């Protein structure tokens, strides 16, 4: 019996005409669908979370943060002379200056990070403009300094566009041990939602010149933020900087949340394997239902052998039969999984299922990667193939007379 005939027989004996009626009543089939759907949702959640986190980090910090070790003046032309010839194309660069301070308003006090940004070049590196949810991106006023406050801060201090609030920065006096706080009043130009809970609850963005005016070194910057051709080049570039340039240090977008990214990297295969247990349980059901099918079809197996079917072709028929259930079950599982992803996204968008304080990002994004779906399908088919092996083997070894003797 050739492969085509084996497949036709397998499909027919599954009962192609009434396949959906049969399948609807088939417990192993639905167990498989649920298992595969769970895998799809889990993979989409983990991939989506990884992508959201990566995007939110890159939008807020850029690909690479570059520092000069001696804290001296770090001028733009140094990047051209020292960094550009490392072999990575730099698509954008912007200086930044960070100071830590306090916001005090309506009886509340909170430590914040004040980041001074260059209002022109910042857009070449960061994606902040469309993260302004209220007000506008405008940090030009120097006499009446303007600020973009994170939505967490805005909520906590009840700040609205146009409101004024003070920022206090403790200053260590040169040649003395005295600390003198420096206070500036800022006007809220806009509220930002950077998509990361920790940034939104701590970051205030101001014009770099205003931030520098808090300190005595007016030209000093903390470092440069760089945008490369691809975020994938950031990690090797940072490695190169550390190994080849003694005067500079750098952090990639990965380093900014290394623990979290590292955890996701290992979480994904572990989640996959854990949820695969559901598919395995479903596969055991397929095995038992195929064993029952072999028992019921002893007569058919006998007659096929009497007509000349070999043990191998009987093995093939039952393998195809199991794989057919596995394939349809896996496809339906993927379909149900995709549907579940859509439902989960809309429910989350409506009710906010993701606690941003825990997961660092404010919005759950589900991402379905073709590679993930292919792996889910392959794993499920492999499990189903293993599930069909023993019943198929049993079918192929059935003695012909066993099926012919009795009706």
């Amino acid at each position, binding site marked *: 019996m050739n492969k085509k005939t084996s497949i036709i027989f397998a499909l027919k004996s599954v009962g192609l005409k009434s396949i959906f009626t049969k399948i609807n009543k088939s417990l192993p089939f639905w167990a498989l669908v649920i298992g595969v759907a769970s895998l799809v949702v889990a993979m989409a959640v983990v991939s989506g979370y990884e992508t959201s986190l990566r995007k939110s980090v890159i939008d807020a910090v850029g690909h690479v943060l570059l520092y000069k070790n001696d804290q001296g003046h770090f001028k733009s032309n140094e990047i051209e002379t020292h960094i550009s010839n490392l072999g990575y194309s730099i698509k954008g660069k912007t200086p930044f200056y960070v100071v830590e301070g306090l916001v005090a308003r309506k009886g509340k006090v909170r430590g914040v990070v004040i980041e001074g940004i260059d209002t022109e070049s910042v857009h070449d590196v960061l994606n902040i403009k469309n993260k302004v949810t209220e007000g506008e991106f405008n940090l030009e006023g120097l006499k009446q300094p303007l600020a973009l406050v994170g939505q967490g801060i805005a909520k906590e201090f009840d700040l609205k566009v146009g409101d004024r609030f003070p920022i206090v920065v403790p200053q260590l006096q040169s040649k003395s041990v005295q600390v003198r706080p420096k206070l500036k009043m800022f006007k809220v130009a806009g509220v930002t939602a950077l998509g990361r809970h920790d940034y939104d609850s701590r970051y205030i963005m101001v014009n770099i010149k205003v931030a520098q005016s808090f300190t005595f070194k007016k030209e000093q910057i903390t470092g440069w933020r760089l945008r490369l051709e691809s975020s994938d080049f950031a990690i090797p570039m940072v490695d190169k900087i550390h190994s080849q340039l003694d005067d500079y240090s750098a952090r990639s977008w990965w380093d900014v949340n290394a623990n979290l990214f590292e955890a996701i990297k290992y979480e994904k295969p572990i989640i996959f394997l854990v949820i695969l247990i559901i598919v395995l349980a479903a596969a055991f059901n397929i095995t038992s239902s195929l064993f029952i099918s072999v028992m019921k079809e002893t007569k058919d197996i006998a007659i096929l052998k009497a007509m*000349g079917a070999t*043990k*191998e072709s009987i093995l093939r028929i039952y393998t195809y039969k199991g794989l057919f259930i596995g394939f349809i079950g896996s496809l339906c599982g993927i379909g149900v999984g995709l549907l579940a992803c859509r439902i989960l996204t809309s429910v989350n968008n409506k009710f906010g299922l993701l606690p941003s304080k825990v997961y660092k990002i404010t919005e759950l994004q589900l991402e379905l990667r073709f590679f993930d779906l292919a792996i889910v399908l392959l794993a499920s088919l492999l499990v189903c193939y293993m599930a069909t092996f023993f019943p198929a083997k049993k079918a192929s070894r059935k003695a*012909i007379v066993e099926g012919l003797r009795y009706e």
Partner: protein
Amino acid sequence: MSDLIISAKNIFKKYNVGSGELEILKGIDFSINAGEALCIVGGSGAGKSTLLHILGGLDEPTSGDVTFKEELIYNYTDAELSAFRNKNIGFVFQFHHLLAEFTAVENVIMPARIAGMDKREAHKKAEELLEDFGMSDRINHYPSQMSGGEQQRVAIARSLIMDPQVLMADEPTGNLDSANASKIHDLFFELQEKRKLTLIVVTHEESFAARFQQRKTIKDGQWLDL
């Protein structure tokens, strides 16, 4: 027409039953020439079906040799033995054993499809056979939509699609009423005559057995006439 086609020597068949053994055949010898018709009769449990299965390559004897055209069939590999059954032997059983999910014509073409015959050619041949048996209006019917006599005709058509040299039937009309049984009996002799088939039939029906020139009776696993 006196060429030896099937022979069996000193056939023993034992089955393990619980802790003991049940001996079904006790040193049976058998031979039949091409084109002959032979009937094996005997009581229930005498071993006639077991002998037929052994002669047709369906069940290996515990000891003894079975040859088809002087070749020992139980020396074949599984694939060779399967091909032997497919090409040389047509089987008809008491319970037609049609595949329930397949139509009449699909059941008939099954051996041809197993052999790898072109689907259209097999289909054409199957339709011709079913027409010969007066089943042209039942071609696309499922076994459950046919009477017992019709199902048995389909089973006979299926046994002939590969143009076998030997047709073996095990109580082919044991499940039919006398009118239908008689028609099937006539059909067997017509086919044997027309196709020059070697016909081996196992039956307990006296009226059917009486129509054979050669009859052998088996009792307790041995020929009664020995």
